Structure formats: structure tokens, C-alpha cells
């Protein structure tokens, strides 16, 4: 992208590349040796509190520099002083929606978004025109002349998304965008984010601890814990990676069959009732063993299918490790 332009998404081959990125604050290491390559798309950044998500977002925006390692976002190098021209250029390509309220009390919705546009470097009239457009797109058309502090939680979140979107950046960094929303508002926000990525070519990095948000919106997921990347890939890849899980349904008196399975080292993940279970089998287990035990207990196996992990199970297992 030319240095003197902002707006409209470029289509680079790689959204970001990080190599051995580490960030320390005094004696505390917030990020350990992060190596990551991500293509453009909708990416979920999952992790519990203190995982290092916010620190990573700040590094990606050039607000803080890594203590060691290097990286690139949209072909721009990370690092250096936060107030350097390079980092300003990087932040022009990124729309950031913070988790905090981040509203300016006393301003109307259109003034707030227009101010954001001018802060991104847009001329005043362009920023005003664009603010009206973006607020209309985000369904705040009726409320745009109301003061932002009078907005409901859902409207505030959309106003924050509008200020991130006003300069039409190729990348959106969204920090807990559904925080504090009711189920309907949350669904609406997730649909908007998905549409921005799918229909308008935005790369979205969604930082959250809500697994359902990532499942609903993201194509890829990066799981962080303790300042390290614990896993990354597409959601389906990550969840299908384990081969030791089965969903089994039996017919007949199944109590004895279940006891035998447990005694053979099979772990019962969930009993879904009426002889249907989700199980994890031990190492070196062969599926023939299911049928042998069924014959012994005089039950009929009606279904035996490999069972993928849910994102929640994957997350808990990864973070737990």
C-alpha cells in the first residue's frame, strides 16, 4: 500500500508474521517467545485473563515494542518508538475497538466517530461524511445525534466499532466486542463482525475469552495462556486433531457394558442418556474391543463414530496443560 494512503483493504499474502517475540515488564514476562504466521481472515485470539492477549494487541498496533524478537504486520515492521512515523503508519491500517468504554462523554455519536476519523488523518469533511455512512451501516442512524453516554450497552459497542471502521482499515482489532451485551445484541454484533470479514474483506483479530464468539465468527483461532501460544490453526483442524474420541450408542442393558469400558481404561466424557456416551479411549485401543465387550454384555452397538473435540474442550485441555 502506498505510504501516503489510508483506507481500502490491501490483500497481502500474510496478515502477520511474528518470530520469537518476547515482551517483559520489569521481571514479569508477558509474552514468551511467540512465533506465529497468520493469513488474512477472521482470527480468534483466545485466552484466559493474563494470557498476554492485550499485550500482543498493543505490540501489533505499535503501542509498545517487543523486548526481543521481530515481526511484521501487513508488511510493516513492528517495534521502535510508539510515536515513530512507522508505527503511525501501522496504526492507520488498523481499526482498534478497545474493551474499555473509550467514549468521549458530551459528544454525539456522529461527532465521536468523526473525531476518530480526523485522528486517523482524514480531512474534516471526509471524516464527517464517513461517520454518517458508518453509523448508518451499523444501525445507529437514528441515534447519531444523541450523546454517546446516553447510549445503551449495545449501541456503545457499535459506536466503538464505528470509530474503528471510520477510515475503512484493512485490519480490525476487536478487544472483547460482545462484552456486556444481551444475547440479541451479541448475535447482532457477531453477525456484523462476520459480515465485515466475509463481505468486505476485512481481516479481523477478535480477542476474547468467550469461546462461542470465536466459534461463531472466526475461521482460525490462536489459543494463548501464560504468555505463550498453546495452539493455532483453523477451528475445524484444531478440534478434529484428536483421534481418541468416539460417540457411541448402544441398545440393551448397558450398565454392565459401561462398567466394563471403564475398567478397560476408557474415559467417559459425557453420558447423554439412553445408552449414548462420548468417550475417550486409552492409547493402543482398537475399536474391535468395543464390539467384544458389547458381545460379552449382550448389548448391540447402534452407532460408533469418531467424535471431535468442541472448542471449549480443546481450550480447556490446551490451557490446562
Amino acid at each position: 500500500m502506498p505510504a501516503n494512503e489510508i483506507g481500502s483493504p490491501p490483500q497481502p499474502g500474510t496478515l502477520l508474521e511474528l518470530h520469537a517475540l518476547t515482551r517483559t515488564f520489569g521481571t514479569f514476562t508477558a509474552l514468551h517467545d511467540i512465533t506465529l504466521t497468520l493469513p488474512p481472515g477472521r482470527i480468534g485470539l483466545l485466552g484466559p485473563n493474563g494470557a498476554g492477549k492485550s499485550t500482543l494487541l498493543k505490540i501489533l498496533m505499535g503501542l509498545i515494542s517487543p523486548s526481543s524478537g521481530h515481526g511484521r504486520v501487513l508488511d510493516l515492521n513492528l517495534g521502535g518508538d510508539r510515536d515513530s512515523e512507522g508505527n503511525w503508519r501501522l496504526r492507520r491500517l488498523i481499526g482498534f475497538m478497545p474493551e474499555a468504554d473509550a467514549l468521549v462523554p458530551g459528544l454525539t455519536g456522529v461527532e465521536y466517530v468523526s473525531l476518530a476519523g480526523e485522528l486517523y488523518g482524514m480531512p474534516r469533511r471526509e471524516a464527517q461524511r464517513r461517520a454518517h455512512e458508518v453509523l448508518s451501516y451499523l444501525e445507529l442512524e437514528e441515534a447519531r445525534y444523541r450523546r454517546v453516554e446516553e447510549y445503551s450497552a449495545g449501541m456503545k459497542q457499535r459506536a466503538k466499532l464505528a470509530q474503528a471502521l471510520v477510515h475503512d482499515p484493512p485490519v480490525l482489532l476487536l478487544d472483547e466486542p460482545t462484552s456486556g451485551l444481551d444475547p440479541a445484541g451479541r448475535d447482532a454484533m457477531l453477525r456484523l463482525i462476520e459480515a465485515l470479514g466475509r463481505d468486505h474483506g476485512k481481516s479481523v483479530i477478535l480477542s476474547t475469552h468467550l469461546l462461542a464468539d470465536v466459534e461463531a465468527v472466526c475461521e482460525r483461532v490462536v489459543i494463548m495462556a501464560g504468555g505463550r501460544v498453546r495452539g493455532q490453526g483453523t477451528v475445524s483442524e484444531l478440534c478434529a486433531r484428536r483421534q481418541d474420541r468416539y460417540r457411541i450408542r448402544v441398545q440393551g442393558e448397558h450398565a454392565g457394558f459401561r462398567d466394563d469400558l471403564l475398567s478397560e481404561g476408557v474415559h467417559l466424557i459425557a453420558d447423554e442418556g439412553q445408552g449414548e456416551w462420548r468417550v475417550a479411549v486409552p492409547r493402543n485401543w482398537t475399536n474391535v474391543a468395543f464390539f467384544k465387550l458389547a458381545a460379552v454384555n449382550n448389548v448391540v452397538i447402534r452407532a460408533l463414530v469418531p467424535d471431535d473435540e468442541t472448542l471449549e474442550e480443546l481450550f480447556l485441555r490446551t490451557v490446562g496443560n
Partner: protein
Amino acid sequence: MISQTDNLLRYRPWRGTPRGPLFASLAMARVSMRLMLRRRLLWGLFGLALLIFFFFFYAQYLVVWITNQLSTETVRFAGVPVTVSNLTKFLDRLALNGTTHTFGNFIWFQGYVLVIVLALAGSVLVGNDFFHGSLPFYLSKPIGRWHYILGKCLAIGAFINLLVTLPAIVLWIEAGLLYDWQTYYLDNLNLLLGVFGYALVLTVTLSLLVVATAVWVRRTVPLVMVWMGLFVFLRMLGGWLVDGLKYDERWRLIDLWNSLYLCGLWCLQADPETIRPQPQPQYWQAWLVVIGVCVACVLYLRRRIHAVEIVS
């Protein structure tokens, strides 16, 4: 929820050439001023400032009129006979004759309103950014933290100049029209430059002080208390120590408004012996205090805004 087709129709991509971060500071200043002008209480204070200006404006005219037009010894003022000499004696104390002390006194009195306006402005312009978490909104944009501080200081500076510099310039023009304008403007050009210098000292010092104290205490009431302490309590203490207990005149330096006044009078080239009350510290000592306050504010802001950005 609107349909997907509508979404596609309504979303427009945008492309353009970005402007430098200094324009962002100007935008911040403009929006900050708008926020201030929406406060009704501040309009009351602006009205008070306007009254002080009108007092000086018409009193300056009155002095010239009395001097030139009145031949009698007494005039009736609200039914009470007042000798002309007593009337002019009162007005003479304010030096309403287009000289150095006219402007020094005007800015001194206007300062009372100015300090209250700034105490209230701090929380609106800066405190709210910390209290309501707006700082990440600003700092996540392609601007430096000094552009943020500059934007806020510009807004505060605009109010200071609106309340002080602009009316002082009008008083200077009026004085020229009341006296011999062909010689007054040329002979007293240094006064106009002095007014600009005084205004610059006030703008830089007070805007940094407002931003720094607002970053520190954030809420309106504590902010007003801090400003009361700085501009009322320390002023009383300084006066009591020097005038009451006859301590060294340098104790008056703890009165920041007095130190700013001395710096302003230095800009206006006033004779130190004519400054009231006496004794007063040296000009250079006042300058040291003012510069020290500015440096302390800059260092504090540098440290504080950095810290907030990391944890927010």
C-alpha cells in the same frame, strides 16, 4: 437487524490521503472547546469575565471623560455628592490610563475568573478521558502522546486567550483612540507585545498545569480543591508570611498567580518598584518558579500518560 443486501448496499469503502498528526491535535482542540462551550456553568463565568472587561473598558473611558470634561469640584453619584478628586483617586489605583499597569491589573483581575474556568475545564477536557477510559481511544490512533497533550493544551490556551488576550488587545486599541492615537500606538507597541508575552506565559503554564492536575485528580471537585489550594490558600499563605510575619519576600513565590503576574509585568516592562504589594521577589526568581512548574508538569505528564497507556 438489517438484511445482508442492505448491508452490502450501505457499506462504502474509503480511500484517501492522510494528514499529519498535528491536524489531529487541532481536531482534538476543536472538539474539546465544543465540549467546554456546552457547559452552562461556564457560560456564567464567561459572562463574569465579560463584566470585568466592560468595567475596565468603560472605566478607562470615564477617567478620560472626567479629566477632560469635568470642570466642577463635585459630581452627584447616585444622589451622593462625590468630589472628582476622590473618584479619580479610586480609579487611579487601577491605573486606567492605557499604561503598563492597566494591562497588568486587567489580567490580574481577569485571572480570578480564569482560574475558576480552568479548574472546571480540567475534568471536562482531560479528567474524563481517564475516568471514562477514553485514553485508549486517542492513543490507539496514529498520533503521539504529545499530540494528545498538545490538543488539550491548545483548547485550554484558546480559552485563556479568549478571556485575557483578546479583551486586553481591545483595551489597548481603546486607549489609543481615547488618547492621541497617532502617537499612542507607535509609542506603546511594546505594551501590545508585552500583552502577547504575558498571554503566552499564562497559556503555556496554565494549560500544562490544568492537564497535569486533571490527569492527577481527574474529578471536578478534587480538581477545584487542588486549584483552590494553589491559587487561594498558597496566595493567602504567601501574603501572610511576607506582609504579616515580615518573612523574606521570596516567600511570595509560593503564590503561583503572583509569580505569573511578575513574569507578565516583566513582559510589559514594568518598573519593579511600582508593583503592589511591596516587597516583591525579583523577576528572575518568578521566572524560575514558572519554568520549574512547567518542567514538573511536562515530566509528570510524560510519566503518567505512558503508565496509563500500558495498563489500559
